[in-house]
């Protein structure tokens, strides 16, 4: 059964957020988006969140607590560690890719240059997670 997702988008760049929202707004299925501007803000949201998000979309390069730091913190947290996290970054740096996979991720998307390609890949990821069962309800 397809369901709408609760998504936590962790991204510091305004235009990246616009890109994401524009993509979402054109989808046939509504999703619920919560935005955080860096790892610190995202952690604060998660710690006080009553219901946890189904999916985290995570940028790597951010101020304060960056993506990798954020990822290693939630992977150690007993309540947060099952939340599937998809990396959304412009870096295909080999070191980043392998560190993320070691910490445990549900996907690693390198943002394509063109918006149409970006939209398509976001849509595909969300379409996949729509049909998944999650640990937390």
């Amino acid at each position, binding site marked *: 059964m397809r369901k709408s997702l609760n998504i936590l988008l962790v991204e510091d*760049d305004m*235009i*990246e957020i*616009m*890109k994401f929202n*524009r993509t979402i707004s054109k989808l046939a299925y509504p999703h619920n988006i919560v935005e955080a501007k860096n790892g610190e803000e995202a952690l604060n949201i998660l710690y006080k969140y009553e219901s946890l998000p189904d999916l985290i979309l995570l940028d790597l*390069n951010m101020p304060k607590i960056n993506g990798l730091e954020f990822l290693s913190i939630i992977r150690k947290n007993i309540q947060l560690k099952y939340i599937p996290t998809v990396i959304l970054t*412009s*870096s295909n*740096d*080999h*070191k980043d890719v392998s560190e993320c996979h070691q910490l445990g991720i549900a996907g690693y998307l390198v*943002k394509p*240059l*063109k*918006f*149409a390609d*970006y939209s398509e890949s976001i849509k595909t990821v969300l379409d996949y997670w729509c049909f998944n069962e999650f640990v937390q309800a």
Partner: protein
Amino acid sequence: MLNIMRQKEQLLLKLKNQNEQLNDYAHLVSHDLKSSLRSLSALLSWVKEDCSEKIGEESICNLNLMEEKIEKMDQFLEDIINYSEIGGTSLKINTIDLNVKVNKIIESLDIPKNINVVIKGKLPVLKADARRLRQVFQNLISNAVNFNDKEVGLVEIGVEETEGFYTFSIKDFGQGIPKEYHEKIFNTFTTLGYHEKSTGMGLSIVKRVLDLYGGEIWLESEVLKGSTFYFTLPKNKANEA
């Protein structure tokens, strides 16, 4: 005497550090610029989408040109990142069946239908860093494809084995390269402008990888008839599989 040796060592160390810093810097800057380009590209496509009726054909044309420039700049940054990464991390040792690897590379390149890329004979299995080796073949093959100016193009990949090393060849039947450019083309940012997407980084990446392995590269070429790029990879106990 000892003193001079020590000075030399210190100088080398200093140079090495500075080189690494430069590489890191190029890497960092390129990544940041790539992010900004993504933003620009998105904003541009929205203007096109939202205002195409209002701004008229000529402006749409200009926006398309902007888009092309952005694409080229993105490729350029990608090349700089690739170039600066070579030598930065230690080489991995993968066992590579070049017959499989080179076919995969050919498939991954967007080769026009009128150009045929063939492997002549059997390529060796050797041990090298798979990503680095891919850069060598990928850049040389895509150059060969881009050089093509005939209606039906052909690119031949071959190898000769001698006691000390393998000599690979990538032969095209394209427009050829005048003698005066044979050395120059290996310099960073040199492009002969045969292809609009060319950044002038491809061959310098190839050369830099081959330098790491103690390989050499040279070419034979005749204008209008085509070029053959040769490169060697030394055989040693480490890369004989």
